[in-house]
């Protein structure tokens, strides 16, 4: 195996198993109380600030961050166990998901002391939510082609103009870490001149327009910036270092269990059918799907272990996202082949409803956070091919 793809094994963590048990107990109680019902792909679509605050109260957000920023100084393995349990239960975690997974770590890595002190504790409390301001209407996979620009005004503040799309839940979020062009585009150095700004979504000049997805659900938005004045101290990291920062950020976000568990609630529903029927072919399907899931889990766990060691395993992370999101969609086909249940949101059969939810969200799995074609290009580079 090329060293770029090799991942050292992790030893089981008693602390992780301990917190896993706590989360499992919490979720069982919440389900029993009817606080939430299980759905597919809830890390995109399950916005529930009250639920996010409960997680914050229990110390399950910002888990790996320093205590002085509201964190809990726990391991990535412990955080992994928590996120995995939440996803498996199909819990409503969308409100805080990006902030906890990606924006917080980004602030920790590049933020000023003031930015950290101000924002991180609120994220860890489950009260402050972030969106990713990267994609633009015309950028597609070619992130270097973004056109939102920020220029310094006389006060040293940034004046931002442009638009970002696919900002998950911008209508329920507080900040957007926004990739902007701070120097004119230079065809010879496409990745130069980009910077990240920490933009308060309540600033004047910002308009949030819903972008409904194909089932009519409102999760994504267009965020339009019209002469938005962002305070000068809201630069994140270095001016001109934006490309490097977003690359690192993307690597961070790609390896988590949300890249293969988005359709786990469908598997769980299918398992109920299999247990009822005892059909050997269905048992085999459950076994096949489970084997794939278990392999992905080991990969993702090993990446969590690497993060604990301070590594940034960007190529394995791209690989996990490629293999994992392919799996998320394949689950639908595996289940469809094994049962004879039409997919419908109005189905009296919970399996039919789970199939419907999984199918209607399926196009997103292999697009969000970098298409699988882009990811495979990264893996090919890791193999030494270009």
């Amino acid at each position: 195996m090329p060293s770029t793809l090799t991942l050292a094994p992790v030893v089981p963590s008693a602390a992780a198993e301990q917190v896993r048990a706590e989360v499992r107990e919490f979720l069982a109680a919440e389900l029993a109380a009817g606080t939430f019902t299980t759905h597919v792909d809830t890390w995109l679509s399950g916005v529930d600030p009250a639920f996010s605050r409960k997680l914050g109260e229990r110390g399950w957000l910002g888990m790996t961050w320093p205590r002085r920023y509201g964190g809990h100084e726990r391991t990535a393995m412990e955080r992994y166990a928590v996120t995995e349990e939440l996803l498996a239960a199909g819990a409503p975690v969308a409100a805080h998901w990006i902030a906890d997974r990606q924006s917080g770590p980004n602030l920790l890595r590049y933020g000023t002391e003031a930015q950290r002190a101000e924002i991180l504790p609120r994220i860890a409390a489950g009260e402050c939510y972030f969106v990713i301001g990267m994609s633009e209407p015309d950028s597609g996979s070619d992130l270097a082609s973004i056109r939102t620009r920020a220029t310094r005004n006389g006060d040293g503040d940034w004046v931002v103009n442009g638009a970002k799309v696919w900002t998950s839940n911008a209508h329920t979020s507080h900040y957007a870490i926004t990739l902007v062009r701070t120097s004119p585009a230079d065809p010879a150095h496409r990745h130069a001149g980009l910077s990240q700004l920490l933009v308060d979504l309540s600033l004047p000049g910002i308009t949030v327009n819903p972008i409904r997805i194909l089932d009519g659900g409102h999760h994504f938005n267009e965020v339009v910036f019209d002469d938005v004045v962002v305070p000068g101290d809201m630069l994140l990291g270095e001016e001109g270092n934006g490309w490097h920062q977003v690359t690192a950020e993307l690597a961070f976000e790609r390896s988590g269990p949300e890249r293969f568990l988005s359709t786990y609630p469908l598997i769980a529903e299918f398992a109920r059918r299999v247990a009822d029927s005892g059909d050997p072919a269905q048992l085999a399907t459950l076994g096949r799907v489970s084997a794939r899931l278990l392999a992905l889990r080991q990969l993702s766990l090993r990446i969590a272990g690497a993060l604990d060691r301070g590594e940034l395993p960007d190529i394995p992370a791209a690989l996990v996202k490629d293999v994992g999101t392919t799996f998320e969609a394949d689950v639908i086909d595996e289940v469809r082949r094994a049962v004879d249940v039409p997919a419908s949101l109005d189905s009296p059969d919970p399996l039919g409803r789970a199939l419907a939810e999984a199918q209607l969200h399926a196009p997103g799995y292999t697009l969000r956070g970098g298409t699988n074609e882009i990811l495979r290009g990264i893996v090919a580079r890791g193999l030494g091919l270009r």
Partner: protein
Amino acid sequence: MRDLVVATVRDILAAHEPFVLTRERPWDSGLWAELAEAGLTGVGIPEEAGGSGGELADAVAIVATLAAGAAAVPVAEQLLVAAPAVLAADLDLPAPDEPLSAAVDGAVTAEPRDDGDGPGSWTLIGTATDVAWAGVAQHLVVLAGSPVGPVLALVDVAGRETTHAANLAGEPRGSLVLQGVTAAGALLTERQADELRARYALARAVQLSAALEQVLAWTVQYAGERQQFGRPLGKFQAVQMQLAEMAGEVTAVAALVDSAVQAIERGDSPVLAAAAAKVRAGSAVEVVARLAHQVHGAIGFTQEHRLHHLTRRCWSWRDEAGTETAWARVLGAGLLADGPDALWPALTRVL
């Protein structure tokens, strides 16, 4: 005539926006009215039965054109399933401008009425489930069970209450309670009942084939126009491989569905041909819809984009009128009817 008919449908469609189905707006009644006025909701139905004449293939061409246009009207059900069944059973066909649908799932039983009306009148008992265009159709052909065999009953369902349910595209698929409803009906043989189910499956296969072809065309067009990294998407070899794979699926489906329609028009038994067409068309959906969305990227995932009007229909149509798995079992069993050593002769007989 066929080209003219298709051109007329296209013209009518071109004047209509893609119709966003909601619970409150469960069909495109304006489009239906225009189609009916042009006589297009009676194509394939003899003029003496109140239709516009024409052949099965003309009706298929209309259904295909409407499917590619994501038209929210019950034309497939009326022209390819319900009307031919009513005519074959010698029942009185309602006027073609009154939407007619079919329910073949058989959770309904029919009892002959003993009031002297004779075997032509039946009392229906039960609930018709997953009824296409429930609440929209004014008449419903119901395939019911009875002590003496399958019964094809024609029910006036205008104004009758339906439960709300929709498929993934929002097309109505509710249930109708038919407890004690009196209806005209006719006994069918088991074979006729099987053939009715097969025609329904073939109707969905025709819709799938047309929709998948359109999805391919849109995706090719998008790949030619959308620029990434300084050149059109379609110049990337990975995208070319994806589009070629889609084309392989679409072309295979089109040939099989088309041949199945022709075989039925020649008078061959529709069951295995329709089963094969439904299975093949249904299994193409996964590949074609997945790759279409992948090539289109996030924009194709939005409600504003036209793509979902077809991909959502395809995801449901493959399940409707019998899933691929159900029809694959029918096909497998049918091919083995003369024993496993006769598989090859059986295959060459299907089409």
